[in-house]
C-alpha cells in the first residue's frame, strides 16, 4: 500500500472524531512516513509496519471519542458506510465513463433518429386506439415500446463490450441483465400508468383551445354582423341593440383571443415537460446500465 492510499483510507474512516484531533493525527502519520522515507524505508514497508488503516481508525475512535458499549456496532456501521460510499462513487464513475464512451461512438451513427421513428409509430398507435376505441392498438403500442427499449439497451451493451477499459465479471453481467429487465418493466408500467394522465391532460388542453377559438370566432361574427347591419340599414333590429351587440362582440373576441393565447402557451409548456420526462427516463435507463 502506498502512502497516499494509506492516509486516504485512514482519513475516510475517521468519522466521529473532533476536527483538531483528526488533523493532528493525520499530520502525525504524514510525519511518520516522511521520517521513514528519510531513513530509506519504502512506503509499502512503512505502511505494513503501521498496520491496517481500518483497524487503526477503530483504535483512534476508541481512544478519542466518547465510548459506549455500542462501539463494535458503531465501527461496523462506519466501515459499511464508507464501503457503500466508495461503491456508489465507483458505479457513478463507471456509468459516467460508459456514457462518455457511448457518446463518442454514437457521433457517427444517427441513433437518435432511429429511436424517434419508433416513438412516432407508438404515438400514432395510441391516437388510433383512442379514435377507434379498440384496445388492440394500445397493446400494439406497448409491445413496440418494449421491443424498442430492449433493442436500444442491447445495442448499448454491445457498445460496452467493445470497450476494453471496462472490466466486467460474469457476476456484474448477470446483475446488469437483471437490472435491464427491471428497468424495462418499470418503464413499461411508467408508460401504461402515465399515458392515461397524459392523454387526458392533452384532451383537456385541446378542448380548451377549441373553446377559446370558438369564443373568438363568435365574437368576431357578432361584431361583423352588427357593423354590416348598422351600415346597410336593412335589419329587423334597432340601432341601440346593434351597437350593444357590436361591443359585446368586441368583448368576446378579445376574451377569446386571450383565452386561446393562454392555453396555447400552456400546451407548449405541456409538450416541453413531456419531452423532458422522456429524456429523464432515457437517462435513467443509461445510468443504471
Amino acid at each position: 500500500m502506498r502512502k497516499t492510499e494509506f492516509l486516504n483510507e485512514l482519513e475516510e474512516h475517521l468519522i466521529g472524531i473532533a476536527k483538531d484531533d483528526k488533523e493532528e493525527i493525520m499530520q502525525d502519520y504524514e510525519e511518520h512516513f516522511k521520517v521513514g522515507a528519510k531513513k530509506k524505508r519504502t512506503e509499502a514497508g512503512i505502511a505494513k509496519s503501521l498496520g491496517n488503516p481500518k483497524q487503526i481508525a477503530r483504535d483512534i475512535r476508541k481512544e478519542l471519542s466518547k465510548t459506549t458499549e455500542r462501539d463494535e456496532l458503531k465501527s461496523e456501521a462506519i466501515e459499511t458506510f464508507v464501503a457503500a460510499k466508495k461503491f456508489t462513487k465507483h458505479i457513478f464513475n463507471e456509468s459516467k465513463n460508459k456514457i462518455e464512451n457511448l457518446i463518442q461512438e454514437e457521433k457517427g451513427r444517427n441513433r437518435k433518429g432511429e429511436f424517434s421513428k419508433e416513438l412516432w409509430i407508438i404515438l400514432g398507435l395510441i391516437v388510433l386506439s383512442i379514435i377507434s376505441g379498440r384496445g388492440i392498438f394500445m397493446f400494439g403500442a406497448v409491445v413496440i415500446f418494449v421491443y424498442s427499449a430492449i433493442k436500444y439497451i442491447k445495442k448499448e451493451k454491445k457498445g460496452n463490450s467493445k470497450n476494453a477499459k471496462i472490466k466486467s465479471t460474469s457476476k456484474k453481467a448477470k446483475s446488469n441483465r437483471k437490472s435491464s429487465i427491471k428497468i424495462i418493466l418499470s418503464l413499461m408500467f411508467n408508460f401504461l400508468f402515465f399515458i392515461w394522465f397524459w392523454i387526458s391532460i392533452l384532451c383537456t388542453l385541446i378542448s380548451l383551445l377549441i373553446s377559446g377559438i370558438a369564443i373568438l370566432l363568435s365574437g368576431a361574427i357578432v361584431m361583423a354582423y352588427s357593423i354590416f347591419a348598422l351600415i346597410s340599414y336593412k335589419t329587423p333590429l334597432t340601432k341601440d341593440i346593434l351597437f350593444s351587440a357590436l361591443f359585446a362582440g368586441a368583448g368576446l373576441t378579445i376574451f377569446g383571443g386571450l383565452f386561446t393565447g393562454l392555453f396555447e402557451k400552456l400546451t407548449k409548456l405541456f409538450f416541453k415537460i413531456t419531452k423532458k420526462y422522456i429524456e429523464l427516463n432515457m437517462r435513467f435507463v443509461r445510468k443504471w446500465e
Partner: protein
Amino acid sequence: MDTQFKKGVLDLCVLSTLRKKDHYGYELVQKISMDIQITEGTLYPILRRLKNEGYLQTYLRESSEGPSRKYYSLTKSGKDKAKKLKTEWKDFERKVDKILR
C-alpha cells in the same frame, strides 16, 4: 505477548520512555514497538489521548535531516502519572509473582 497485557501497559511504557528523555513521534513508536510487539500505527492514537489528558506536551524542533519534527515531552502531571503507574506496576508484578510461585 497477550494483547490484554500490552494494552494495559502501553500508557506506562510511553510515559516512562518519555520520562528518560524527549522523543519525536517516529522514534518513540519504533522504540516501543521493538520491545513490545505491537503494530506501530496504534501508538499515535495513544499519544494523542495522553496529550488530551494533559500528560504530554508537544513542540516542534528543527532537524538536520529535513522538516522540523514534533517532539513529545512529559508535563508535570505526566511525570506524576508516570511515577504512579510505575508503582502500580511494581506492586502488581509482586502480587502476580506471588501467585505464580
